[in-house]
């Protein structure tokens, strides 16, 4: 047994030596240097691309060679901050299969010579500053499957010759400046899967031929200038899963046979579509997102839409829809967003909407709705935002709204609501906006409104409120705007208001307030406009009523003089009034009819991989109840981890970092993006992150089998069979090393990364270093989070292992199939909506196990 292991090791070492000394002369090195010459290598990331005779181009950064011919097969220089241009010499690398220059700052044109790289399968030049046209020569690339040129400055037309590429699967030209028509022949590419043309200046009409694309799942022409109708045969595009025609100038009606589509996302918003909403849309059971907003659609909302029980987002706002809101919409049990605002809807708000327990956002503002606000809405316990502004609703504010604990935005303004302000409103503790202005609400302001400590905006203006301003408003610590104007409030302005440091807009004008306006704490920042129309109010500005109140010493003033003074005062008062009112008119107070005009910044959610793309920060917070403790699945040295199960999406693990705001946010972000760009089968990939003042969150794929420690220490119970422990250790430690080294290599530019990862190469010249690295990896798997080394320590240790000079000649061995793996998993804008029937589970290959035995041997021998 022992000998066989030793034999294996010997074989391994011998093969290493063989590889190390193999050297084949080729022109490719010279060509690469020529390519380097036209890059402006700002950060000197290509420093190992040198023409010293000992330097083998196959180990240069980003270069991958064929292991037999030693020709360059892949060039991966993405995200290296390269400047300059792509050299025409690239055409000399005839064996190139993959070119990835994504995310640099390359300018200049795409060289014609790229058409000479006849083996090219994948060309990704996205996120650069390339200009000029798409070279006609690209059509010579008969093997090309993956052409991604998005986010550049490309001009000109889309050449019809792209249809000559028989294997083209992904064509993404979005966010350029391409003009002209979409070539009709592109629709005859047999295996095209993904067509992204969003954000260009394309004109012309949509051809009926688009349904010839029998394999296409993603069709996106958003934000162009397309005209004409949606093709009548659109229903034949049966493979489509995402159809995004939004923000064009499409006219005509939505074709009847659109109902045959099996899309998950149908985005037609921002066009000029007219006519009715076809009832057949109610049969599109797969719809997750239906957006018909901002068109000229008329007629009623078809009640059959209630059949869409899987739909999460229904946007019909900004049309000319009439009739009432169908009660059937209450059957759309998965609905999160229901936006019906800015239409001509009449009738009642159906109480059935109360069945939408998942509803997050309900907006029916600016319609002609009547009747009361149904009490049943209080069963929508996930409701975060409710906007009924600008209708003719009457009745009172339902006290049951106190159950809407997650609600942050409540806008009932500009209706005919009567009655008192229900004291229960003050129990909606998460409210940040409360707007009940312009109604007929009477009574006094409940002092408990002061309990709404998260309130940012409070608008009670233009009602019939009486009584005093509650001193408890002083507890509204974060409030930014308070408007109590045009009521019948009396009493004084409570001094406590002066404690509100963040308050930048206060309006108590046109009430019956009396007394002095507080002067403490910079209260004078509010202009006189905030206080006018209160005859009894004394201000700190000139001409305020009480400033002239010198004790009347002389009584002997003639009646004429009194009349003159009175008249003069009246004139002055009038002038002030005019002056005060004039600037008020052109800038009316935003009444929040559309989106929330909240001025504080929401945390930014940055999505790195697209599994989360359908979701927004709010969704995640909602599902985890603002990161409630019950979702905690573990904690580490620097963070707590939560689990979040999102709709239509694999579950994510949320890692909340303990350390607050990093010193340099930008740097931290860059680092995150580096981690995010790593894809390794043993590494949980970072899906996205969100950084804000309050918390820094990282989003990872959720792994079903618990933590690494659990795995190593036998907690792991598999449904099928226990995984041999050693394999896990080995795979995981290598993965963590891979991650660490990857980060490190960004700074140190070394090829050690490639030498460690067995997937890339099995060559490793210094076994001592390997031992240390492996021990370090084991440290990373300690029971207690505090025992584990921090990322900083890891990088330091690894840094000390780095050889100072570039490693000697070592032809790297790469299975030629590797570069193409990326080709097949291109999902960018949208999440993978389909559950693949065959889950591709990569299992550990025998060579990996063999390697482990070798490594384990060495370590045990050395530690004795």
């Amino acid at each position, binding site marked *: 047994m022992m000998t066989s292991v030793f034999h294996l090791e010997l074989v391994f070492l011998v093969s290493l030596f063989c590889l190390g000394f193999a050297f084949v002369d080729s022109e490719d090195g010279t060509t690469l240097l020529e390519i380097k010459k036209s890059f402006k290598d700002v950060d000197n990331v290509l420093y190992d691309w040198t023409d010293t005779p000992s330097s083998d181009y196959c180990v240069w950064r980003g270069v991958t060679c064929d292991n037999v011919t030693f020709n360059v097969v892949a060039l991966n220089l993405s995200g290296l901050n390269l400047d300059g241009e792509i050299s*025409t010499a690239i055409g000399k690398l005839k064996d190139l299969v993959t070119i990835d220059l994504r995310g640099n700052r390359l300018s*200049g*044109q795409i*060289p*014609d010579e790229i058409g000479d790289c006849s083996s090219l399968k994948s060309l990704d030049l996205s996120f650069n500053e390339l200009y*000029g*046209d798409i*070279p*006609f020569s690209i059509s010579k690339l*008969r093997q090309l499957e993956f052409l991604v040129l998005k986010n550049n400055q490309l*001009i*000109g*037309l889309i*050449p*019809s*010759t792209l*249809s*000559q590429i*028989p*294997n083209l*699967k*992904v064509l993404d030209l979005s966010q350029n400046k391409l*003009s*002209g028509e979409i*070539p*009709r*022949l592109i629709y*005859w590419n*047999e*295996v095209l*899967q*993904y067509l992204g043309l969003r954000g260009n200046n394309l004109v012309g009409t949509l051809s009926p*031929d688009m349904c*010839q694309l*029998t*394999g296409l*799942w*993603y069709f996106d022409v958003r934000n162009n200038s397309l005209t004409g109708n949606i093709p009548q045969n659109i229903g034949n595009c049966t*493979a489509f*899963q995402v159809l995004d025609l939004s923000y064009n100038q499409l006219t005509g009606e939505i074709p*009847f046979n659109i109902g045959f589509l099996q899309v998950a996302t149908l985005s037609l918003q921002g066009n000029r579509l007219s006519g009715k909403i076809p*009832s*057949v849309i109610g*049969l599109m059971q797969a719809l997750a997102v239906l957006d018909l907003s901002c068109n000229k659609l008329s007629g009623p909302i078809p009640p*059959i839409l209630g059949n869409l029980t899987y739909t999460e987002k229904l946007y019909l706002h900004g049309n000319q829809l009439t009739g009432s809101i169908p009660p059937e919409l209450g059957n759309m049990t998965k609905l999160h967003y229901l936006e019906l605002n800015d239409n001509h809807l009449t009738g009642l708000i159906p109480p059935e909407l109360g069945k939408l327990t998942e509803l997050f956002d309900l907006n029916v503002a600016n319609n002609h709705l009547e009747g009361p606000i149904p009490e049943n809405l209080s069963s929508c316990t996930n409701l975060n935002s409710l906007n009924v502004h600008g209708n003719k609703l009457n009745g009172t504010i339902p006290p049951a709204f106190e159950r809407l604990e997650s609600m942050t935005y409540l806008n009932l303004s500009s209706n005919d609501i009567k009655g008192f302000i229900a004291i229960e409103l003050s129990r909606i503790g998460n409210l940040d906006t409360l707007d009940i202005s312009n109604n007929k609400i009477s009574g006094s302001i409940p002092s408990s409104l002061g309990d709404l400590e998260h309130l940012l905006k409070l608008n009670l203006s233009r009602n019939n409120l009486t009584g005093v301003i509650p001193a408890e408003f002083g507890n509204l610590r974060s409030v930014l705007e308070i408007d109590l104007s045009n009521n019948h409030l009396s009493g004084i302005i409570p001094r406590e208001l002066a404690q509100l440091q963040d308050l930048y807009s206060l309006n108590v004008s046109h009430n019956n307030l009396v007394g002095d306006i507080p002067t403490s704490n910079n209260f004078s920042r509010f202009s006189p406009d905030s206080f006018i129309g209160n005859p009894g109010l004394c201000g700190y500005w000139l001409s305020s009523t009480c400033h002239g109140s010198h004790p009347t010493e002389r009584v002997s003033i003639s009646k004429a003089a009194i009349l003159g003074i009175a008249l003069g005062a009246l004139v002055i008062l009038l002038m002030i009034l005019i002056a005060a009112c004039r600037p008020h008119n052109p800038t009316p107070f935003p009444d929040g009819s559309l989106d929330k005009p909240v001025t504080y910044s929401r945390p930014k959610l940055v999505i790195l991989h697209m599994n989360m793309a359908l979701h927004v920060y709010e969704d995640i917070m909602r599902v985890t109840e603002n990161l409630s403790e019950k979702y905690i699945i573990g904690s580490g040295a620097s963070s707590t981890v939560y689990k979040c199960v999102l709709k239509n999406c694999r579950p994510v693990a949320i890692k909340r970092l303990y350390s607050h705001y990093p010193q340099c946010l930008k740097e931290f972000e860059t680092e995150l993006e580096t981690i995010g760009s790593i894809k390794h089968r043993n590494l949980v990939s970072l899906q996205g992150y969100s950084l804000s003042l309050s918390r820094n969150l990282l989003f990872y794929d959720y792994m079903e089998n618990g933590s690494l420690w659990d795995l190593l220490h036998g907690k792991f119970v598999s449904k099928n069979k226990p995984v041999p422990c050693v394999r896990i250790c080995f795979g995981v430690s290598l993965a963590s090393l891979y991650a660490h080294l990857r980060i490190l290599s960004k700074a140190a530019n070394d090829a050690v990364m490639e030498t460690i990862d067995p997937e890339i190469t099995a060559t490793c010249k210094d076994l001592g270093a390997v031992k240390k690295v492996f021990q370090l990896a084991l440290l990373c798997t300690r029971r207690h989070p505090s025992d584990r080394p921090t990322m900083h320590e890891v990088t330091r240790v690894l840094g000390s292992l780095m050889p100072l000079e570039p490693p000697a000649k070592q032809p790297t061995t790469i299975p030629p199939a590797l570069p193409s793996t990326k080709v*097949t*998993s*291109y*999902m960018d804008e949208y999440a*993978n909506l*389909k559950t*693949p*029937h*065959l889950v591709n589970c990569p299992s550990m290959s025998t060579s990996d196990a063999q390697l482990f035995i070798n490594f384990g041997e060495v370590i045990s021998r050395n530690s004795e």
Partner: protein
Amino acid sequence: MTVVSIFKLALFFTLTSTLVTISLQQEQPLLLNSAEQDSVYQVLSSINSATNWRTLFPDDLCSYPPHGVVCDYFTDPTTKNVTVHVTELSFGYVSDFTPNPSCSPNSTFSPLLFTSFKHLRKLFFYQCFTQTQAFVPVIPTTFGSSLEELVFINNPAFVGPLSGITGNFTSLRRLVLSGNGIHGAIPNAIGDLANIEEITLSRNKLSGKVSVNLSKLKKLKILDLSGNGFHGNVPSSVGNLTHLLKLDLSSNGFSGKIPESLSNLQALDFLDLSFNRFGNFGVPLFLAAMPRLKEVHLSGNLLGGEVPEIWGNLGGILGIGFSNMGLVGEIPASMGLHLRNLCYLGLDNNKLNGKVPEEFGFLEFVNEINLENNNLSGKLPFSANFTAKVGEKLRLKGNPELCVDEKLSHRESVGELKKCSKPDIPNPVLFIGVSHSGLLSSSSPFLVLLLFWGLWILLA
């Protein structure tokens, strides 16, 4: 009003009928009959025997199919019995969104495909037969009346005569056999596929003369025979394909004259006849009558003659490939005048002489101009802005008499040209004399006519 109500009625009917069928299916799910189910398993294992398909997909293959297997319901018109049958079979992994069953290197072509699936509408093979040769089986005459799409892409080991695959497929809309090992001539039966919209036979080993009568293929939009070994004349019946969008006959051995009848292809977008052996008949003048043309490629045919003056109605053209055609004479200035949408112009490797038309410099979209290896002369008439815009893609080398202005000579793309010797104050008399002698020496009455025509235009 009545139309609307009828429409409403129809809508109501479809809705209810769909609901009824849904509820019907829920009551008693229709199962694929065991013989057909078994055939699917057999076909799957012929494609990839390493996978145990019966254990992976043990249930009814219409209810729980692998990707690539599609079924549909059929109602017997007399008995009203509803049955379910396989209608689509697709093999070969394309992407994560079209994860058809992947093929093993030694996959074989099961004859069951042409016998067991009477209702098959689509048969699709992508990169399936790559190593072990798979042969086209004999197709029984009873098969194929419902087949609409027959697609074989990149199956280099799929061999056999074309006549073997094109059976009695009267419903065929799409025949795509691209990058396979199919040989033989085009059988005459193809001329009877009255419903066909696409015939793509590119990159095979087809040969022989194309003598089939294509007149009946009124719906054909795509005809692509490129990359084969066809020879002889292009049949003039191609001209009857009035809905054709794309005609690609490139990289074959077609010879003779390009048929005049092509001028009837009024919808044609894309014409590629490059790399054939068409004879010395000049650039076809009928192009002038094809106003929808976007791209025309005739490179690699020694058509000879001059670049004709046919561009008046061809303002939609984006790309012209006229390389290596033995063209002589001057480049007509009218090209620059009329081809307002031109992006790509290849006139390289000809024997063109005279000046580069100044008009090219005003083309708004042009991004690539290749005039390499001609006998062009005189001064490059382009502005610095224009040369900057086109950049490296203005190719002019191999024109020894062409020179470039001092100001432009630092541009990389034109840097190889010699600098124009200071024209000082040119002697007008001498200049006229030279140009006259040039005209006379070429002794082309056509050119003189052209000059007059040009003058007339200028005056008018």
